[in-house]
């Protein structure tokens, strides 16, 4: 199938290239979102603390620690998404975070609390729970896709005569005497 791998040049076809570009774009967007969200919260820990407290899920001292720990975690993992060596672990951590956020928002909704999401800094808008959950689900879906793509990278049938080798970043690449097939 020429769309997947060009049989003459052994280069990725247009479908593969398109998928790779879409994945790269998704990774950059997600990284940007998490770094942006982290920086805003890092600058104003007092506001973020009151946002965490509005969920009423943990004691004040724990909320205080979370208010300082979470923003740099988001920034570091956001940047980690851009590095192939750290992408898998970063996507895994951020995905777990997103699941925790979704649960927290759903619980707050169920309890009838008027929360300030705190997701992207302070917001003076009234809480729109469905939108918050849909937004977080979209981000979680994007992270799950990146994580899946990272885990399955290179675990495809290598062309005949090619040897699959595992690399330091966790990926498996098809190798010929001419070199590594670019992905």
């Amino acid at each position: 199938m020429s769309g997947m791998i060009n049989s003459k040049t052994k280069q990725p076809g247009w479908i593969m290239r398109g998928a790779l570009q879409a994945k790269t774009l998704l990774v950059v967007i997600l990284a940007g979102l998490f770094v942006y969200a982290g920086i805003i919260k890092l600058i104003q820990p007092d506001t973020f603390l009151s946002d965490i407290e509005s969920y009423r899920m943990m004691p004040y001292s724990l909320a205080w620690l979370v208010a300082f720990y979470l923003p740099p975690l988001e920034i570091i993992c956001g940047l980690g998404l851009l590095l192939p060596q750290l992408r898998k672990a970063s996507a895994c951590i951020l995905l777990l975070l997103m699941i925790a956020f979704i649960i927290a928002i759903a619980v707050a909704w169920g309890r009838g609390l008027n929360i300030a999401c705190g997701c992207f800094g302070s917001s003076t808008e009234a809480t729109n729970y469905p939108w918050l959950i849909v937004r977080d689900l979209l981000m979680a879906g994007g992270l799950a896709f990146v994580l899946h793509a990272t885990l399955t990278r290179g675990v495809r049938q290598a062309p005949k005569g090619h040897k699959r080798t595992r690399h330091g970043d966790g990926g498996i690449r098809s190798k010929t005497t001419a070199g590594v097939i670019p992905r």
Partner: protein
Amino acid sequence: MMKSILTFILLLALPVIPAALNAWLNPNVPPWNPMQLAGGEVALADLLEWADDYILIDARSPESYQVEHMPDAINLYAGEFNTQIMNLLDVWSPERSIVIYCDSRQCGASEELAQRLRQDFQMENVFVLKGGWESYRTSNIVPSETTRPGAQRTGSLPTLNIE
């Protein structure tokens, strides 16, 4: 596998350093003790002693405001901001302070409204009532009917049995 676990742990441990630096150097560090007043906060007991003229703002929902609110408070809910802000602007003047409250210590709406008024409307002397409505309700102060929202007051909330 081992390498992945180590990377995972490293990514979880690394934020501790910038978090500690931020807690040390950031000027907006919230107090460790929840009862301690942060910058821009005022306790109810202090408010009663205030000599300055101030406007009380209730940042809770209009429904909660209708049920009960602090005397002479103006309702300014985030969801109705554009319509209700006029009620504040009608009575506000630069020399008057603003004190905002929401449900409780955990609500956050008063802090965000205070920030918005400071940034978007250049209002100075905007304060958040520590503990919010809950602190007022659990105090010995008797809520009274509001007749003139935003009326001039200088720390003289209707009180009863204040020790």
